[in-house]
């Protein structure tokens, strides 16, 4: 990196994060740090059974407990809407999915462990908790439906009595290709088949969810402080569909948010409850989730069971792919749940390859488990895992190098833009380049020698590769509307230039660790040619930021950043008009460079602050043709997804005595298009890798057959810790800029979690195969020592 880029702090500089100062000194302002005068506390009484009919609730004893203000049950929510689902999937037969009601507090039935039955509001958190224990409830336990196959069986107990079955939808994509795909399989020279599980996970941001509802009765104004990735979406969903509060009477604030990874996208019952109760009680109501409660109430992720088949011709070209997946929805439809196994999964099944025929079938299933929705990657990790595992298996069956099999089938650089058979058009990419880079940084050539050393030490060494594609920056709104989204997916920004030249940017995007305050300022500073310190980024408050769709799907810079660029360009256009007036020159001759407006070919210029001051003190100003002031808002609606891609390599050692897997090295060679802050991009990849490796080796959300969640604490759910992971080799020097957004950026937030699980599993299978355990062709994640050891024994 040239020195001057770092010094200027613009695009391409690894600028240190300004937000770190408050976080490192204990001065962050997270939702639980907000305490309002007269605040009451709510504790939710949650179901301890997975499925049951509520006969009665006796709250008399609890009501009489000290400090209790009021106890709410479903009766209090008559006339209040259910939690809405934001995506309607249409099934193979053209019918809409089955969509059950999701009440704020359980009505008539409890449908999963953790389903809220009653809410106790009291003067202190302890008083609320004590009183909740005194509520007597009469619930008849019903058989729980936990296994998806059992849930779909004829005569299975129904999670929702008013639905025809536990099948949410049966989706086929591309349905018109179904027969052609089947025919391709009959003609294939070789077919590789793999049954696999994409294990259920819990996102586990370190900050548990918190909601504080407030109500200003004098102005009939409700405010919700919440741990959200998208406060405007919460305002819309909760205001319009649940509580019936119009936007101008409802403010939603998501201040510093301690991680999200998808789980804080969704509109949750506790948010609606606190807002509702604050209005009823005319005092603030606060809920702080415990970690145990987070496991029982945050939407879970993944939980797909899939059979994938890959048909190859005699030349080892991929001829067709066919998959059948059961996707767990849990007991209710969380906000974007239906989109994950469909439009975020099926459209990625072409991967980096030229497979001409693809058919994806997904059955989404209701079970008596916590709702499942998007978790970092959302659908794309599931697609990548299937593809990259089945390709590795095929290479082994055919006796060819897995790297060469991939290369043979890669879309070539000259084939872009590339129309896949699963609807999407990839704009750019160079998969050969990222594969080459991966082999270089992972020292693939030196692997054989390292494997010998391991062998001498009694260990089995393996190397696994995965090459992923993802679709980010979700978009365009008219397309997602056709696909069933009940929202637009643009982003907006307001750029407010102040009189003395400093800039306040308001974005609808939201940072919960991504560093928007730093990177977005770099972009604006670079465009105008001023110091990034003159630019402040504001987000997370519906009262001062324009409409926003928030942060998820690696969309912040690609969509939110593009809106900021668009608004800043409007600012520059207007500033040039002002400069032209001040310099008595033609607007066409004005050039902006390094924070100065100059008349081309002359030494006449006016600096940025001179123009901004003229805009607000318009004494010498073209008032007849130009409004004073310098503030612009822009909405940006992307014309396509972005398509980051990359090659990931994992090197492991397996202890044949215990089955324990140790990751010795992990390398990632990504193509994210242009990069604004390389330091932050590295951090995003490293964090994603840890989550992907966690899925592959450690994490598993487990229910027993009665629907009890067995993994509801950090003593039972294995979070990756510092000692479980290696240091990473991360590279993003392969760049094919996105062709359809102004910054040429693709997004980097989810890649690590998408590409790494298959690389890890491929590495372990490689180690076992090399060690002579040739019967082991697949092990389901997480690859715990017990699972690996058991697989070796068969």
């Amino acid at each position, binding site marked *: 990196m040239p020195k001057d880029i770092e010094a200027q702090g613009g695009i391409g500089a690894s600028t240190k994060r300004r937000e*770190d100062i408050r976080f490192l000194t*204990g001065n962050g302002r*997270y939702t639980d740090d907000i305490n309002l005068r007269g605040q009451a506390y709510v504790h939710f009484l949650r179901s301890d059974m997975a499925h049951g009919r509520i006969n009665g609730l006796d709250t008399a004893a609890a009501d009489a407990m000290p400090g209790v203000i009021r106890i709410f049950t479903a009766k209090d929510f008559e006339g209040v809407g259910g939690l809405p689902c934001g995506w309607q999937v249409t099934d193979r037969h053209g019918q809409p999915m089955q969509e059950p009601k999701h009440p704020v507090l359980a009505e008539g039935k409890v449908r999963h462990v953790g389903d809220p039955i009653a809410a106790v509001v009291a003067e202190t958190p302890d008083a609320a908790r004590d009183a909740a224990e005194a509520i007597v409830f009469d619930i008849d336990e019903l058989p729980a439906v936990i296994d998806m196959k059992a849930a779909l069986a004829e005569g299975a107990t129904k999670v929702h009595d008013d639905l025809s079955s536990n099948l949410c939808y049966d989706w086929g994509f591309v349905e018109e290709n179904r027969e052609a795909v089947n025919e391709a399989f009959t003609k294939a020279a070789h077919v590789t088949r793999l049954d696999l599980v994409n294990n259920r996970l819990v996102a586990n941001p*370190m900050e548990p969810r918190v909601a504080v509802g407030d109500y200003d009765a004098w102005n009939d104004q409700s405010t919700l402080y919440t741990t959200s990735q998208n406060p405007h979406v919460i305002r819309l969903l909760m205001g319009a569909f649940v509580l019936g509060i119009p936007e101008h009477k409802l403010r939603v604030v998501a201040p*510093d948010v301690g991680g999200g990874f998808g789980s804080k996208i969704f509109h949750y019952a506790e948010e609606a409850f606190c807002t509702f109760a604050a209005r009823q009680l005319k005092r603030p109501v606060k809920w702080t989730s415990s970690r145990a409660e987070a496991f029982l109430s945050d939407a879970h992720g993944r939980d797909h069971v899939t059979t994938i088949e890959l048909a190859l011709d005699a030349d080892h070209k991929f001829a067709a792919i066919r998959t059948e997946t059961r996707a767990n929805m849990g007991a209710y439809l969380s906000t974007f749940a239906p989109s994950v196994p469909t439009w975020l999964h099926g459209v990625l099944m072409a991967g980096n390859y030229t497979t001409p025929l693809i058919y994806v079938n997904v059955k989404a299933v209701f079970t008596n488990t916590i709702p499942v929705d998007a978790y970092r990657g959302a659908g794309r990790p599931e697609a990548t895992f299937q593809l990259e595992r089945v390709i590795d298996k095929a290479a082994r069956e055919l006796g060819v190098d897995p790297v060469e099999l991939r290369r043979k089938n890669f879309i070539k650089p000259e084939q872009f833009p590339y129309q896949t058979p699963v609807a999407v058009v990839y704009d750019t990419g160079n998969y050969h380049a990222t594969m080459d880079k991966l082999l270089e940084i992972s020292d693939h050539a030196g692997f054989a020698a390292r494997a010998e050393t391991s062998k001498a030490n009694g260990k089995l060494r393996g190397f696994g590769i995965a090459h992923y594609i993802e679709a980010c920056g979700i978009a365009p709104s008219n397309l997602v509307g056709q696909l069933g989204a009940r929202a637009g997916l643009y982003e907006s920004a307001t750029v407010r230039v102040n009189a003395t030249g400093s800039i306040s940017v308001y974005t609808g995007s939201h940072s919960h660790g991504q560093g928007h305050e730093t990177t977005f300022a770099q972009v604006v500073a670079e465009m105008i040619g001023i110091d990034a310190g003159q630019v402040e980024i504001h987000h997370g408050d519906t009262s001062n930021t324009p409409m926003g769709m928030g942060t998820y799907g690696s969309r912040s810079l690609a969509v939110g950043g593009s809106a900021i660029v668009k608004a800043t360009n409007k600012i520059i256009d207007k500033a040039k008009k002002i400069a032209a007036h001040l310099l008595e020159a033609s607007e066409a001759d004005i050039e902006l460079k390094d924070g100065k407006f100059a008349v081309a070919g002359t030494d006449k210029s006016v600096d940025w602050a001179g123009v901004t001051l003229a805009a607000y003190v318009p004494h010498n100003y073209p008032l007849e043709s130009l409004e004073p002031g310098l503030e612009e808002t822009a909405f940006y609606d992307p014309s396509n997804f972005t398509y980051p891609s990359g090659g990931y390599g994992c090197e492991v050692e397996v202890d044949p005595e215990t089955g324990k897997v140790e990751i010795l*090295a992990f390398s990632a060679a990504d193509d994210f298009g242009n990069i604004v802050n390389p330091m932050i991009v590295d951090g995003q990849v490293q964090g994603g890798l840890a989550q992907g490796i966690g899925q592959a080796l450690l994490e598993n959300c487990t229910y027993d057959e009665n629907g009890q969640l067995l993994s509801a604490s*950090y003593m039972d759910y294995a979070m990756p810790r*510092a000692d479980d992971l290696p*240091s990473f080799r991360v590279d993003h020097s392969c760049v094919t800029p996105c062709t359809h957004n102004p910054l040429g950026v693709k997004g980097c937030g989810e890649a690590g979690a998408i590409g790494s699980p298959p690389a890890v599993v491929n590495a372990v299978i490689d180690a076992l195969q090399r060690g002579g355990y040739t019967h082991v062709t697949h092990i389901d994640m997480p690859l715990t020592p017990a699972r690996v050891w058991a697989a070796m024994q068969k």
Partner: protein
Amino acid sequence: MTRLSMKVNGRTVSAEAEGRTLLSAFLRQGLGLTGTHVGCDTGQCGACVVHVDGKPVKSCNVLAMDTADAEVTTIEGMANADGSLSVLQQAFQDHHGLQCGFCTPGMVMSAAALLEENPTPSEAEIRHYLEGNICRCTGYHNIVKAVMAASGQDVSQLGVAAE
């Protein structure tokens, strides 16, 4: 409710507490020191680590009453006297050792205790010592880097050298 006094970040403070009040709650709600975070209920995540009489403890696992008259240091007491970041805090910023910032106070407190015990820890020693602090954002790479850098060690080869 009992009035409880202790020395926090060099100042003698007091507030009301119940017998069951945890030190983490006393700091956050009693004293308004919200830099100490609570990320779990089982003493696993380490977001709540503070120093009590110089030793790192998980403040969610200690009753406030048991720390009466103790000397407690929280993240709010870690900057230099002039308010600038300490060497360790500065290393976290320089090496991007934090993202959402929620685990950061506990991470810094644990890392400070490590460096007190072992002024030049190896990568493996850092990873082992920080096992009681969970971070979901960074993948630990840059946390390890920050701690090594704070101890004056070269971090340029972290992750590069093949084993």
